């Protein structure tokens, strides 16, 4: 018989003693975390104290004020104007732009080569696939620094300016770089640039429209030729509008160098080839894995419906393959951007190289390295944010 009175023990909390507290998991977890946080904070403070103390004892300057001081050194390759009278901060910006330019060119080249080799690897042609496999094994296993140094020494040993190798009459190949003719600067070029960007945007919008149209009505609209027309046609229209300027700036050997034309330095080229080939090996493997990840049944089903091979590739294989390819591909891109920091070995003035010089001229190692690390960290965080966004966009939405 149950007693209905205030002494009913069911549902009452057990007595809290010290031992129950000590054995309770949540208490111990909380204590562990507090201890962990305290240790981390303590270590952080300890290190900070030491740094401040050491820097003070040796009278080494601190703070970021050095970014405004005159740098007093020149930089060989720059995308914006810079001279020895500009500040260290501007020198860092020059370095950053150099890093981005070699990385962008590297990403383009690596993707091109990587996709080609990756597709070749799963080709039914035995010879082609074996050659592609050999290529991938070689470029992946040789350290990227060795590749970059090899190319830089190779390019440095090209004939010097006096014995330049002529390239189709419009350029020269020397150990100072590849110099070739470009159209002389004309005000219409900026308009052409805008037209190019507009053409690309319109082409993308057109493809989105074509996809929506296909999904709602079922008719396929081939946007390939219209897209090419937009991307090429709009700049050409702008060029015609500007009076069709045809003046070309030819390189002419004068004194020590070439006047006119554009020169791509051997340091840039060596770095570009080295990091692009290295990354292309990994990209080839990623592409291969992506293409092989499409279940064979998909391709067979599409073929059995009578679609042609290019159609199957474009609308069945590629979307599924890209889902698998894009995440590791973006991390390879970030890896390529970080590999461009090897420029310090070949003398290309990228961010790390210039940071190194600044570190030495001012003695402020902590601040200079902090700037370099922050820039790369930002680049990599931006990339992973975009990749997470893309992943969520193309993730298979299960019911």
């Amino acid at each position: 018989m149950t007693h209905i009175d205030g002494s009913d023990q069911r549902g009452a909390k057990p007595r809290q003693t010290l031992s129950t507290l000590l054995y309770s998991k949540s208490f111990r977890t909380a204590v562990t975390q507090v201890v962990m946080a305290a240790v981390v904070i303590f270590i952080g403070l300890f290190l900070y104290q030491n740094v401040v103390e050491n820097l003070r004892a040796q009278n080494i300057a601190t703070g970021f004020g050095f970014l405004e001081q005159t740098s007093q050194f020149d930089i060989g390759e720059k995308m914006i104007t810079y001279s020895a009278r500009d500040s260290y901060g501007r020198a860092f910006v020059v370095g950053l732009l150099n890093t981005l330019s070699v990385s962008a060119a590297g990403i383009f080249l690596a993707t091109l080569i990587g996709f080609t080799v990756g597709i070749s690897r799963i080709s039914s042609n035995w010879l082609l696939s074996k050659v592609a496999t050999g290529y991938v094994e070689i470029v992946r296993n040789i350290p990227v620094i060795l590749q970059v140094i090899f190319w830089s020494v190779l390019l440095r040993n090209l004939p010097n300016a006096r014995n330049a190798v002529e390239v189709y009459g419009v350029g020269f190949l020397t150990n100072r770089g590849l110099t070739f003719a470009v159209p002389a600067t004309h005000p219409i070029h900026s308009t052409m640039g805008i037209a190019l960007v507009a053409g690309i945007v319109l082409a993308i919008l057109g493809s989105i429209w074509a996809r929506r149209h296909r999904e709602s009505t079922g008719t396929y609209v081939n946007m390939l030729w219209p897209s090419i027309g937009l991307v090429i046609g709009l700049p050409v229209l702008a060029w015609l509008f500007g009076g069709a300027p045809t003046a070309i700036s030819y390189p002419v050997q004068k004194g020590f160098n070439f006047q006119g034309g554009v020169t791509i330095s051997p340091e840039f080229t060596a770095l570009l080839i080295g990091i692009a080939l290295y990354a292309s090996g990994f990209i080839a493997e990623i592409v291969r894995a992506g293409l092989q990840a499409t279940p064979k049944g998909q391709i067979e089903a599409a073929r059995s419906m009578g679609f042609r091979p290019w159609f199957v590739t474009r609308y069945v294989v590629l979307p599924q393959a890209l889902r698998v390819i894009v995440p590791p591909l973006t991390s390879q891109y970030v890896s390529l951007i970080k590999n461009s920091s090897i420029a310090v070995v070949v003398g290309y003035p990228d961010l790390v190289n210039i940071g190194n010089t600044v570190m030495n001229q001012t003695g402020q190692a902590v601040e200079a390295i902090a700037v370099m690390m922050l820039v790369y960290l930002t680049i990599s965080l931006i990339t992973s944010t975009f990749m997470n966004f893309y992943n969520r966009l193309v993730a298979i939405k299960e019911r």
Partner: protein
Amino acid sequence: MTTQSQHAPKMATPLEPVMQFDPNAKVPFAKWVQKHLFTSLWQSLMTLVVAALLLRFAWFVLKWGVIDAVFYTPDPDVCRAAAGACWAVIVEKHRPMLFGLYPYDEHWRLVIMMVVYLSTIVASLMPKLWNFKILIPLWILSVTSIGILMFGGVLGLVYVPTSEWGGLPLTMILFSGTVLIGMPVAVVLALGRRSPMPVARGVSVVFIEALRGVPLITILFVAVNVFPLFLPAGVEVNKLLRITVGIAIFFACYQAEVIRGGLQAIPTGQYEAAASLNMSYWQTTRKIILPQALRISLPAITNHIIAAMKNTSFVIIIGLFDILTATTAVMQDPLWRRYYIEAYLFVAAVYLFFGYALSLYARQVEKWINSGRI
């Protein structure tokens, strides 16, 4: 109602041969060539073009590398006169290339060290010997003997400080230091990132993301230039140790992500079963979770270990004399300067050899896992 005979398969009469499928039949060579190389017009064209380029390249390599090459001569002028490769530069310079700045008379110690090291590694890679009772004494023995051989100072050997170590032995030491220090740290970081405790998770995430986003060069700069400032006045830590720890931590951050992938692939049922047996967090992790997670992520782990071997070449930037730095330094000799291609090919061959050996081993380990042997 259909009779059986209407649906029975068409039986072959005795006069018609039955096509039997023989899985072991060898495809005749001509048929194989046609199937793999000349399937269609486009394929045939590609085969011909690739074959032509390949043959031309192979002939060039043969001519330059073997037929016209000079294999041994102490006189650089002989090499200059030859049209082909000058492999004599390797014979002439292999000592500084392989051993760096290590005192010339003590190179025999380095040779012994490499033999000890390689045999220890090969022994550790055989599953038959995977027993802590064997591995730990083996490693303690080899680390001690390698230490004695490299440092010297005892047993009548000349003392050689770490600043003079170089070449291939230095690459090996950096590589094993990276893996030995990095793997435990990676496991701890991966577990921390998946930990139910927010503080542990936060610290792990910040650590991993921060160090994965920066290039290895900046970490080496920190190890060389900034780390001494972190220590209280008067405390010095050996430069080689700092650099090894730097590369190891960088390696650990990448490896932690890989192991985390493996940890995520383990079904919750495993955790629940362990909890129902009243196993503590560490017992569960050590006996149930980690073995499975490591097996799952083993291919990616081995990939990163192979990459770690290549990452040791980054020390050229901070002036440590590994095999690549030593080669670049050696090639400045004005008499032999123009034969840099042969020297770099030699170094590339060394890296290729080790990388290929490691990847063969990785494939073997995958086979063992798939067959349940480990």
